């Protein structure tokens, strides 16, 4: 009698057995009752079995690799805390990018976790549900590890104490909150295109590659480690987004028009959020990797160009606002920075004017048009500061009804003129920062008339009172600690004392 060892299954076979063996055909319930959200968006699927996740991760290997990533990450975080890593960053100013990250991006990870949990329940294909459930767990891991990493900085620096509370209330954070609220309240297919494709594939590289590389360059071991640990999951998420869009487009020719509408919408929604990232890269990293515009060229024009070249055979085109985004590329970070500089009294992080060297770097990166338009403004603000009259804007801005960003973006072809658009709906006039946001509103006005706009809420008396002191209290922005210029802040005093201590050693 001979004994032969059972043959080890190949990766493709193991995955096929996992995803085909797990599902079953219901006998006493209608499929439409089990997956009630699968049809209302108008997406037509002929054969759900056509979907295959190219990463073919089985549950056992998912747990194995995620556990290994966590062990590596937490070893670094422990070491960072034990060795006072916060003192080794390039400059105290740097921590302000973490304040934005923790209050704006981290709650977004949590929102993505919730959205993918919905998807992991609602799509009628087991491979897609497994991938969505894995992604849901990944997003939760990202939120947790980011909170954990930043908690160490919170022991020393201001502005990191109330991220979750502030996310639901503070004016600039409503931009990100409304983006994810919008995505989570759409149907499962739109959510998949919004977050899985448009955000993950087209836009998150900008956040997690050049920006996190910037964290590495600025000595922030803990952030670069959580950043790249998160991004290693993103590669899987991006691939899911791309496979999903291909699958939907191959299933029925009627799907292309719906998908194109979602791509146009979610490219613009996501791109508007990145304005704050452009500011972080160009104005807030003490040592810079590359200008925003270069990152935009690499990750949008080059990588996105290749991607849309591949989708062209389904009749899918570049987002209809890509051209406007390219026109804005040289000024996006500056228009955003100049706004936050004026709103320093009403923000939970510090702003500051760029140094002479930084202005030179910016002028070189962005060219003579940038110099002509913006150098005089920086010069003017610097003169005011020298007289002890730092300019803070005392008024409340008008917000865009869709992206919720104050109206500070300029006309695509005229950077000296603020871009305003408006639409009347049911007798009320609504305002927009761009053609992109106006078109999104006009596609679903009944959704966007419900927007929770921070300025309107202040006006209606829902934010603690009418004075800036009362509103800051409502936001939990600690006056004189979290806000105003970095120069003169408690953060700066602390950082300087650390530097002085360092110089004393050995002298």
């Amino acid at each position, binding site marked *: 009698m001979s004994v032969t060892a059972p043959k080890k299954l190949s*990766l493709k076979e193991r995955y096929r057995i996992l995803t085909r063996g797990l599902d079953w055909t219901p006998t006493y319930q209608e499929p439409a009752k089990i997956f009630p959200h699968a049809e209302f968006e108008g997406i037509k699927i002929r054969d759900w079995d056509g979907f295959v996740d190219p990463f073919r991760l089985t549950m056992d290997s998912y747990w194995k690799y995620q556990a290994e990533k966590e062990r590596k990450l937490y070893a670094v975080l422990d070491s960072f805390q034990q060795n006072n890593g916060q003192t080794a960053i390039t400059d105290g100013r740097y921590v302000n990018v973490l304040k934005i990250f923790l209050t704006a991006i981290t709650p977004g990870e949590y929102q993505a976790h919730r959205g993918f949990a919905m998807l992991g329940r609602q799509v009628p294909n087991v491979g897609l549900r497994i991938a969505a459930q894995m992604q849901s767990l990944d997003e939760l891991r990202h939120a947790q590890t980011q909170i954990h990493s930043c908690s160490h900085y919170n022991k020393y620096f201001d502005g990191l104490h109330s991220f979750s509370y502030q996310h639901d209330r503070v004016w600039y954070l409503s931009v990100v909150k409304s983006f994810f609220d919008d995505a989570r309240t759409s149907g499962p297919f739109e959510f998949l295109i919004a977050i899985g494709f448009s955000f993950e594939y087209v836009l998150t590289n900008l956040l997690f590659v*050049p920006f*996190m590389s910037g964290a590495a*360059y600025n000595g922030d071991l803990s952030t670069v480690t959580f950043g*790249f640990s998160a*991004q*290693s999951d993103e590669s899987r998420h991006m691939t899911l987004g791309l496979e999903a869009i291909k699958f939907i487009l191959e299933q029925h020719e009627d799907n292309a028009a719906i998908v194109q509408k979602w791509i146009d919408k979610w490219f613009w929604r996501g791109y508007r959020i990145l304005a704050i990232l452009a500011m972080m890269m160009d104005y807030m990293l003490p040592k810079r990797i590359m200008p925003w515009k270069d990152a935009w060229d690499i990750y949008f024009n080059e*990588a996105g160009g*290749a991607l849309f070249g591949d989708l062209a055979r389904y009749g899918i085109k570049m987002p209809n606002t890509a051209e406007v985004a390219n026109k804005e590329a040289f000024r996006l970070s500056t228009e955003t920075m100049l706004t936050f500089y004026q709103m320093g009294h009403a923000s939970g992080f510090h702003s500051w004017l760029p140094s002479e060297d930084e202005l030179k770097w910016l002028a070189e990166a962005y060219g003579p048009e940038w110099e002509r338009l913006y150098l005089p403004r920086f010069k003017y603000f610097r003169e005011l500061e020298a007289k002890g009259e730092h300019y803070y804007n005392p008024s409340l801005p008008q917000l865009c009804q869709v992206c919720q960003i104050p109206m500070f973006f300029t006309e695509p072809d005229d950077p000296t003129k603020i871009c305003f658009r408006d639409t009347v709906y049911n007798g009320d006039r609504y305002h927009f920062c761009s053609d992109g946001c106006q078109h999104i509103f006009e596609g679903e006005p009944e959704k966007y008339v419900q927007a929770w706009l921070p300025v309107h809420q202040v006006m209606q008396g829902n934010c603690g009172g009418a004075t800036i002191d009362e509103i800051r209290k409502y936001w939990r922005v600690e006056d004189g600690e979290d806000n105003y210029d970095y120069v003169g802040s408690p953060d700066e005093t602390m950082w300087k004392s650390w530097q002085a201590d360092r110089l004393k050693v050995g002298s």
Partner: protein
Amino acid sequence: MSNVSITLYNNDESRGLIAAILKDNPASTTMRMPGVVKIDCPNKLTILRETVENELGRPWDVQQLHMSLVSLSGMVDEDDDYFTIAWNH
């Protein structure tokens, strides 16, 4: 023709992987940033298990790529012996 792209951690584990990629995809170019290496290649890039094992001097499971991967651009095809990224246009 468009570039496909893969971005890997800049650490010891990835060093062998990067060497294997450059060997099997001679048309590829590298861009080094703090913490990461981005490799671009026209149309298609293949990672072969055998080449990676020769570079590392030990067995290597293709799915261990998840431990070094930061980002990628292109359609993925993965099996026991290879990992490919390609555009179909």
